[in-house]
């Protein structure tokens, strides 16, 4: 198993009602499968996940990307800084 840390920001933090969580994932799964697992843990995220950006270890990640061991994954909406 692969124990990862998930961070939530902005609207994703509000929906998930938390800013961080730890999760055990099967080894070698990609972001698309990770999202399916996450929805089973936090159903409130389902509605917004298609519009959510994902990073793995502080770099933007996409559905086909494999999650490395002990990764830090962040979920957040399109950015609005400046």
């Amino acid at each position: 198993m692969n124990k990862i840390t998930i961070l939530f920001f902005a609207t994703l933090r509000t929906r998930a009602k938390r800013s961080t969580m730890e999760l055990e994932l099967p080894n070698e799964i990609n972001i698309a499968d990770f999202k399916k697992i996450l929805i089973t843990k936090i159903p409130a995220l389902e509605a917004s996940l298609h519009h959510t950006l994902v990073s793995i270890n502080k770099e933007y990640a996409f559905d086909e990307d494999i999650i490395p061991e002990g990764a830090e994954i962040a979920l957040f909406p399109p950015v609005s800084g400046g």
Partner: protein
Amino acid sequence: MKPSTLPTIISITEKEIDLNALLEEITLTSTGAAAIFTGMVRGETSRTGQAQGINYAPHETTYLEYEAYTPMAEAKMKQVADEIRKKWDVVEGIAIVQRIGKLYPRTPTVIIACTASHRDTGVFEAARYGIDRLKEIVPVWKKEVMPDGEEWVEGEYIPTKGG
């Protein structure tokens, strides 16, 4: 002669942005020009229109509350600086600073400053590129708090591989 290491200042901070101190840090002996962009909190939005995916009507803003995924934000600000240097190799110093926390109208929230030997080197465009890219790829968000409610502002840009 340009020094081998050109100054690049990158920071997410809760403190007031000190433009003079930043300018001092990115000014070399060869520097003759600095292009500085700064954005501040608007207290009144008078235009009706659409920006960042939401329709907005004329309204009043009490304050904006900014949050960042700081380690990634600083990494992406560094990427923006690297992209600027790749496109404009005449740029000498770069400062990119985003302030976070609760920020009230008229308060500067962000600064992008680029220095070069002369003003006609592309230094204006370099600073413009910097703020545009920051708004696309640097993970910072703001919540707008108004007299009658609050709303997260969401951007529109969907990054591709590498940003």
